[in-house]
């Protein structure tokens, strides 16, 4: 019989894990308390990172991003708007960082092209007239929900069972080993027990709660950020501010909207996050310095997404200095449970590599030697998630 893996969390990481583990021949069930991608994943700005944003401050994340950027374009053709990205200097201080930025990109393997003021304005007429110079990078944009849905669709076609609206509530254990996950099926209003040989906690900012079900702890810092969408497509590039990541320093086109982001702070409960009007105003004020039209456009939405950053409670209150890379925790080592792994941190662009690293650990624990195949397996279209579902399963 195939070994059974239960993945808790139906976000981007859970999607890529379901796909990876299914390709390795495991019987995967994904439990998600709400709709798939309804936690953090669906809410991000839709940026496929080139890595440029992290090149100066977080080299490891930058390298992960540029590698995954290339892989995702290959396995998910048709999911990305290749508008490119610009890192724009709008002050002399920004312009002074040009060389450091270009060098950091080169060291991370991120191709760049330097644009003069006039070349930048030609390439992106929406830019502020204050622009001093710009550096072009291979940023792209995506649909934050539909890319993960392609992973889910492919996993589902391969036999994975996806259970949205099914919330993990307790573990059934035999000694130090989890044998089943008891979950509440909110659609039917009843509990179900899902047998498991291994459980992977991919609940993002909620992963602390899931780990606690096994008496384990993960050093997770739920770190919300506010994003603002305005009506109108005011730029075709992803426009980043050429400085160390800060608030309101990114503007990107998303269908008929322009999305401006973001702020960053930390909270204890990822379910209780308020969008403050001060954040919205500050983000639009900063966004206007890059693409002035976003300041005059009508606002479509303001919302918050909670990043699952890694850091001990009490560390950095803004969350800005916490790394955007990911970590796997094998709870056999910390006394939680022998067959529980937590994957957390990371970002949308690196969902596949997070899954690969986690699936490697999972397979080692289960004695499965099949190698990862997700670098080359082309994903089904997102519509296949709906058309191949077994309704009412």
């Amino acid at each position, binding site marked *: 019989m195939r070994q059974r893996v239960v993945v808790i969390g139906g976000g981007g990481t859970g999607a890529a894990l379901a796909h990876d583990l299914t390709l390795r021949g495991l019987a995967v069930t994904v439990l998600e308390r*709400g*709709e*798939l*991608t*309804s936690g953090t*994943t*669906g*809410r991000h700005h*839709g940026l496929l990172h080139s890595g440029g944003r992290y090149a100066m401050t977080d080299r490891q994340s930058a390298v992960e991003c540029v590698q995954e950027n290339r892989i995702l374009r290959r396995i998910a053709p*048709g*999911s*990305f*708007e*290749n*508008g*490119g990205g610009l890192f724009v200097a709008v002050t002399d201080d920004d312009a002074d960082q040009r060389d450091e930025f270009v060098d950091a990109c080169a060291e991370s393997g991120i191709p760049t092209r330097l644009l003069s003021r006039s070349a930048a304005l030609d390439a992106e007429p929406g830019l502020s007239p204050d622009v001093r110079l710009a550096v072009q990078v291979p940023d792209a*944009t995506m*649909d*934050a*929900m*539909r890319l993960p849905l392609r992973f889910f669709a492919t996993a589902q076609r391969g036999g994975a069972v996806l259970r949205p*609206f099914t*919330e993990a509530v307790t573990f059934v254990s035999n000694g130090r080993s989890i044998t089943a996950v008891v979950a*509440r099926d*909110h*659609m*039917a*209003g009843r509990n179900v027990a899902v047998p498991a040989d291994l459980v992977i906690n991919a609940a993002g900012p909620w992963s602390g709660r899931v780990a606690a079900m096994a008496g384990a702890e993960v050093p997770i810092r739920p770190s919300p950020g506010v*994003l603002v*969408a305005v009506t109108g*497509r005011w730029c*075709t*590039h992803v426009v980043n501010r050429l400085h160390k990541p800060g608030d309101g320093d990114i503007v990107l*086109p*998303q*269908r*008929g*909207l322009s*999305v401006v982001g973001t702020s960053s702070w930390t909270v204890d409960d990822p*379910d*209780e996050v*308020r*969008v403050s*009007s001060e954040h919205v105003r500050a983000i639009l004020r900063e966004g206007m310095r890059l693409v002035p039209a976003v300041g005059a456009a009508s606002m*479509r*939405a*303001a*919302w918050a*997404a909670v990043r699952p950053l890694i850091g001990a409670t009490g560390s950095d209150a803004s969350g800005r200095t916490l790394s955007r890379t990911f970590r796997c925790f094998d709870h056999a080592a910390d006394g939680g449970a022998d067959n529980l792994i937590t994957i957390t941190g990371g970002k949308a662009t690196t969902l596949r590599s997070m899954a690969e690293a986690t699936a490697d650990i999972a397979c080692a624990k289960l004695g499965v030697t099949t190698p990862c195949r997700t670098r080359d397996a082309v994903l089904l*279209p*997102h*519509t296949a998630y*709906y*058309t191949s*579902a077994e*309704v*009412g399963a």
Partner: protein
Amino acid sequence: MNETTDGEAAIRVTVYRRRAGDTDPHYDDFDVPYRPGMTVLDILMSIRSHQDAELTFRHSCLHASCGTCGMRVNRRERLACVTPAGAPGDQVLIEPLAGAEVRSDLVVDMRPFYESLDAVGRPLLRGDEHNHDGHRLEDCIECSLCTSACPVTATDGRYAGPAVLAATERVLREPRGHDAAAVLERADREQGAWRCHLALECSQVCPAGVDPAGAIMRLRRDLLRRHLALHVHRARNGRRS
């Protein structure tokens, strides 16, 4: 004015409820603490967090980009994430989209909708509005608000519906490798473009500015021209022979 038991200003919300397997729906009332700027989706999340963890509804992006949170708010099709909840004391009626099977509460079965979209074959990216290498995401976010608002789909499930016909028109305008003739043939049926009765509600409720009604009319214009041209051609040939 409504108040919660703690005396806070509240919005009175009436929500359609139906568990998977139930035969009949019922409606539940909730008093939800009011916050300035809150959306209908905020209301539902508040109910789920503080009053009823079993309330099921779909959502993802929170900025009218993913199309999952379509529902009927006060009998009108809306994306909950960008619909203001109203003022304290307001009453809000929240029901699932019409014209689709209810799976539970506000969650409807999207499968038939996606199957019919798949049959047209509209891709996720469009190529006619060029940016650097020529692609941007399609405007239609597949929310199916139009299908719910259409009085014809409300009456007859065989009608292709506005979203699918709008997708058809997109594919014809920009075939991108699709078999345009076959797609057009599918639209040229009684249950295709000709079934539209021009209530235009699809375009009124579309949250992404797609204008499905305009697309259907353009389709019909094109079909009409083809049919007329064919008749003229036949008539002329008939005269010669």
